């Protein structure tokens, strides 16, 4: 039982860590590159405008997709490693 609890805690901590890293990237590409940091990226031209505009209208969405698939893949692997998967 003690082992089981320890294992469960480690699994949950690993999940929280993954969520924090993913959400940091989520915030960086949208609120960061897309909005607040746009003036800093103004020097990087992308097709008639700048990188910040690209992140606001394209890049953030593409990053969101990558993040969800990365999270799903990592978590489904963690489920098996910690023996908490459904099968």
């Amino acid at each position, binding site marked *: 039982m003690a082992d089981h609890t320890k294992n*469960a805690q480690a*699994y*949950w901590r690993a*999940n929280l860590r993954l*969520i924090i890293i*993913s*959400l940091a990237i*989520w915030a960086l590409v*949208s*609120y960061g590159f*897309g*909005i*607040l940091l*746009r*003036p800093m990226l*103004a020097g990087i031209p*992308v*097709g*008639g*405008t*700048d990188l*910040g*505009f*690209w992140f*606001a*209208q*394209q890049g*953030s*969405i*593409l990053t*969101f*997709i990558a*993040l*969800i*698939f990365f*999270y*799903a893949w990592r*978590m*489904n692997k963690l*489920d098996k490693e910690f*023996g*908490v*998967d*459904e099968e």
Partner: protein
Amino acid sequence: MSQFAINLIFVGGSFALYIAIAIWARAGTTKEFYVAGGGVNPVMNGMATAADWMSAASFISMAGLIAAGGYANSTFLMGWTGGYVLLAMLLAPYLRKFGKFTVPDFIGDRFYSTGARLVAVACLIIASVTYVIGQMTGAGVAFSRFLEVSSDMGLIIAAVIVFLYAVMGGMKGITYTQVAQYVVLIIAYTIPAVFISLQLTGNFLPPLGLFSEHTESGMPLLAKLDEIVRELGFRDYTADVDNKLNMVLFTLSLMIGTAGLPHVIIRFFTVPKVADARWSAGWALVFIALLYLTAPAVASMARLNLMNTIYPDGPTADSILHAERPDWMKTWETTGLIKFEDKNGDGRIQVYNDTPAFAATASDRGWNGNELVVNNDILVLANPEIANLPGWVIGLIAAGGLAAALSTAAGLLLAISSAISHDLIKGSLKPDISEKGELLAARISMGVAIIVATWLGMNPPGFAAQTVALAFGIAAASIFPALMMGIFSKRVNNKGAIAGMLAGLISTCVYIFLYLGWFFIPGTATFANTPDNWLFGGTGYGISPLSFGAVGAMINFAVAFTVSALTAPPPVRIQELVESVRFPRGAGQAVDH
């Protein structure tokens, strides 16, 4: 063949498909009615979620909003997609593990309180009903424009179709029709966009065309657009925004509002496993992104096309004569969505930004005010006509717009009816109701919800447009924080959750009412809705009523944690429940209870 006949074939054909699916996918049990039996393939569910989520607002209005606002309205693009990251990581897998049928189910059980469940039911119904009004009116407008019936008649046809598959098939029928509706709407959205991108930039992928060279002028497309609108006194299309605090809060409100909308969350109860719920959120966003990556291209290209139509020789030369305007402008003038008034009597159409800063230039050119008002909503619908695309593309757009409105309406109606039959009747009023009785109650609630929605669609309250802000505000400020705390904290108790939800709900509603009118009654607003009146408005960083959902969510979190810390922790069995939703093992399919 006439355009009317083509539209009829496309719309009629798509409707025949939805009815066939309805007959094939009838629901026999409450489990099939609420969660489609719990065996939906995650990719398929992703597609259904995309149709469920992308409403008339995404399909018809969003590109128009971006065209008008340029970079500033990128908030819609980020806000309406970023919520899926939150759903995938913070809500969907755990709620799927919990394994019941509705959102109030979880809130009621986790916070061991009928009060919490009823507050959740109230939030769900207010958010979903306000949302469904927009879908029904959207369907009515699309019908009246493309099928030459009255808007009310169109609404009734739409209601009958939704009634057929939603009442018969419940979530099962809705799921498979949404898959078909997704296919219709995404084809309808992307085909005209590909044609227009090819015409303007030679690049057949609109998201790349957006950043390519404008073939005619040899300049980058966005630089050309900036140049034209600047000549007419508008802000540059790509210009940065000054009030970044409000831009951040508005985007955040849309994101957490999206993650907190019950009709989206319940879609993740239909997949077989927790792992599938995670994948499914990813697939949903892939299918959503096909439209959302195309929309900004449609927006800028349509604005450029429109400006080039009105100023064929460039913005510094004379504009087009009203008598020589293209046919599509005449068609849309009859709907009242394009209005022209020859203010300076020169027979030409002048479009410019009628502000004091531009007044000198305007009077130099003999202009006496902006003469053309174009409703944002027609941009996508009129796009094929503006770009001179063949008639079948217009028929496709008609079928696509209706698919977007109907799929979202059905999802919302299911969320409303299951909250009534499952949470209100079975969960509170009559817990001993039989399976058959509950299924009948679910069907009756669905029927009543459709009738109410149709009536509201025909008699839209004058405040229909503002209420969308309310739907997102409520989902963001009340539902999302309650769900998240229920999963990620074992310490938040019944009193904390109820106090938090009410604080988030009330603060958000009051802030919206202060600027948009109490209960949206015209003329009752306490303050004029202008940026310098908003909270912190004096600093230039005012918070708009539409952005307040994120603040309401923070208030909810703060109140819930404070009240919980001052009162007794939840009982051990609840802490064990929280523990169990965190681990996928032992999920099984969504269970009856």
